[in-house]
């Protein structure tokens, strides 16, 4: 019954690869090469992304998924501690649920 939707739906590995690509575009390949990006990587501590880089990252998600995903809205519902602890796996899950 969900054949049409499922063709467009990405699995977690695909979302992870796409997120990695976005992160590379935002912070630059030379930095990413030195990092081991995993779903446990936290945005602020491990990836050392600052807020303007997270803005760029959010814009890429918006451009890719359109209205399907309110990524900025989701981020803005978090308090500072939650944002600091945000990791890639949480984002992958969120995107997966929204699809």
């Amino acid at each position: 019954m969900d054949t049409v939707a499922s063709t467009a739906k990405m699995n977690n590995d695909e979302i992870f690869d796409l997120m990695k690509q976005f992160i590379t575009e935002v912070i630059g390949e030379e930095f990413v090469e030195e990092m081991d990006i995993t779903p446990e990587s936290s945005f602020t501590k491990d990836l050392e992304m600052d807020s303007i880089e997270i803005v760029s990252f959010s814009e890429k998600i918006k451009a890719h998924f359109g209205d399907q995903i309110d990524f900025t809205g989701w981020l803005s519902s978090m308090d500072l501690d939650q944002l600091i602890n945000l990791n890639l796996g949480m984002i992958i899950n969120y995107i997966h649920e929204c699809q």
Partner: protein
Amino acid sequence: MPIIKINNRDVHIQELNKEATETVLLIHGMFSNLSVYYFNIAPILAEHFHVVMYDLKSHGMSERTLHGYDLNSMTDDLYALMETLDLNTVHLAGYSFGGLIALKMALRFPEKLKKLAIIEAPDPSDEKARGIIDDYSREFLEHYVENFTDTTKVKMGKRQMERNHRMYEFLFYQTSIKNDMVAEKDFFSDSEITTINKETLLLYGSDSNCMETGKQLSKMIKSSELMPVPGDHNIPIQEPVLVGNMINTFFMN
């Protein structure tokens, strides 16, 4: 990433809710960028308003430039941005140095503005505020980052420290920002400020070093209201939802 040309330079902007009839324009502070609004304050305002944020020159993702950090140049840029985006009149909010730009805008182009929200604008004659610029060093940056920036809760890693270090080095040693700021030291003592006739909301942290400046401005600007917010100079980071709601209510009524 939306980049537009303003006075021949690339300027990074972000817009929300373009369909709304009234526009709110947000100006960030020095050594910061539009992300100070992007995640919380802007989405609150976008429930009713078209919201425009932009990165000041050499900040965030806008193009670097060597000159023009005085308030005249900064308001020339803002005027040109409004022309480019076809914005006739806006509600204007500015934080810290952005608050000074907003005040200058109200003096130079009052016809372009509706209401004014000033968040933690410092007194430019304050030696301490300007002293930051004289005492810059790597140690200073580490101290500054630990105490005064929006990353207070996160220990900065190596890449971020380098990135920030490069930005400060550029702004302090290669641009005219130092001299341009010193030249603005009489901005508040100039009686011109008293001629501002816009309805003005003054938001200052109850524990902020700038609170006295807030009181001073509330006396100088006739139709202004000073409202304390729990926190220090960093209230947009400490109380983003409260600040967003206060500005929203003020612009709506």
